[in-house]
């Protein structure tokens, strides 16, 4: 009897773990398209293991548009009126985290910052 309880408890823990892991993963990984970067975003179809351009989006979906799937070669699948389509990742704006911070306390920056240099990527805090 005790053995059965242990097994049952173990299964419950396992199920709970799977549910928690799944939920968490979904929440963290879920991406949204915030905008399109060109006027007529291209759409793609998968042929074998290749993405082939098959036209342009006839009507932009309402934004933000949830990303249904993402391919590491740089394509994202979104839902449109005509069903799910693949679009070029380069042509959409996704909300990506920027873990950097605007500090309020000075660390090392000092009073005579002079850089005879060039402007870089990104901006400091405005």
């Amino acid at each position, binding site marked *: 009897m005790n053995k059965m309880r242990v097994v049952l408890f173990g299964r419950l823990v396992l199920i709970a773990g799977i549910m928690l892991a799944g939920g968490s993963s979904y929440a963290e990984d879920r991406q949204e398209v915030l905008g399109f970067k060109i006027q007529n975003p291209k759409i793609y179809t998968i042929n074998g293991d290749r993405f082939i351009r098959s036209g342009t989006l006839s009507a932009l979906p309402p934004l933000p548009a949830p990303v249904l799937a993402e391919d590491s*070669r740089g394509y994202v699948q979104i839902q449109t009126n005509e069903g799910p389509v693949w679009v070029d990742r380069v042509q959409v704006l996704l909300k990506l985290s920027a873990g950097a911070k605007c500090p309020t*306390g000075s660390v*090392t920056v000092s*009073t005579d910052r002079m*850089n*005879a240099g*060039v*402007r870089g990527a990104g901006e400091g*805090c*405005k």
Partner: protein
Amino acid sequence: MMKVWSALASLRACSIMGAALFVLSGCQTQDSMRELIAGSAEQKPLLHRKIAEGPALGQVASLDGTGEDFYTVRLQMGVAKHPDLDKYLNDLLGKVQATLPTSPAPARIYITPEPTFTAFGQASGNIFIAHGMLSSLESEDEVVALIAHEYAHVLMEHYSTDIISDLSGGLYGGATLYMMARHNQKGRMDDTLVRQALVNEAVLEFSSTGLMPSLSREQESQADRLGMDLLLRAGYSPVGMTALLDRMHTWEGISNSRKVERAERLSAFQAAEGEEATKRPEGTAASPQIPSFSAAFAAMLDHASQGVQALKAELSKKHDDAADRGREIAAYQDQFYADLDRPPLTVKPWLALKEKRHVKAFFEGMQEINDVAELLSGQSGKEALARARKVKAGAAGHLPSARNLLTRAEMQAGNRDTATALMRAAVQSEDSLWQEHERYIMYQLGESATKGREAAEASYDRLGSPQSMLPLMIKLYMRDNRIIQADMFLLSCIKIGKPDLSAECHKAYKGIV
């Protein structure tokens, strides 16, 4: 267009084999290069307009980490050295350089301990990436995109005018002297600290507004486009550049929110100051216990250099936001590289490195330095001291910013002897920061005018006679009744020919501030 990617892949292969082998074999790339140069002259990918056409040479050129401009940044921010990260980043830079059809301009990458989403390059080839930005990136493609963008600035020789140097030099003198005048009470430790903190805060605002030397919108755009070319030639996905710009867009949102907060705090501070001034008996100084450091610096900025605000507005006009840049690079990619058979994102090497125990601890240490610095600004002394000591003993403990933090924390906790010993050691160390010199000078000044002047002299010599110290030197010599020396410094200052700096020197000489 599929041939384009083949051409890129072929170029990459050639670059690995080296130039000599390339000449012998031909690599069948010359023709491919021609194909790569699509359309009319105006429509060519930027790489082929800005850099002589030709195959990748496979050459790498590194810098030795010296030079005046490197020294300036090292002094101001400190460099966050980490052998594995430094090697990784510079190997990636080497990969980018190797794709060039001409001898690459020498360059080297350094990490800075700043928590912001910032990177910048210098004309000499030094590239600095803030740890806040670096640790945010999630693929090697993004890291290479960032490097390629910065290196593109170097390749295209995007020099700036010296207007920023002029202003920052003037501002330095203005801010420091203003605070000395404003809180000129006899050298108690806390007064020194308050003065120091206020000056630091002023500069933090100034330096974190993106006031890097001004580049035009077109130059920034060119660096994005050439960066994209280099990224692809190095065998990475264009998504690296896109993701970098998307992340920057998020950062701009964070940064803009802070701007609003700061404006509100400034208004509150100005209102409080006005109220206090009306109550204060004539001729008495304001209390150093002001409501907000962050607000104080903004008022100081206005006071120290009115031109700064105008310049900030001017710069913001010249600079596209990340969303605009993202749209532009998407159009560029669509025009020239839309049908490339893309490689998948290269995620593992970068993430694996970031997750290594000592690298992770290093990043966490730098973040902790910034967090504790914020605590110190809020004057949470005991907790800040405990955490600063822990940081000093940790993976980022060797950084000058960790030492600087501990000194501040010891001072704030009232541990006078320990703080003094740390200050003395700091100003004599090889990697000393300007802030450490400044703090020591102020502290000694609190002891006596002569001690302050002597400390300033020692720093002035050790730091290679920086122009920006001249107003301070004049002020301190005047204070110590050494008029002839003050005259000489004033003449040197005028001779440099920078109007803002000269004005600050005059003010210091006349005792206006």
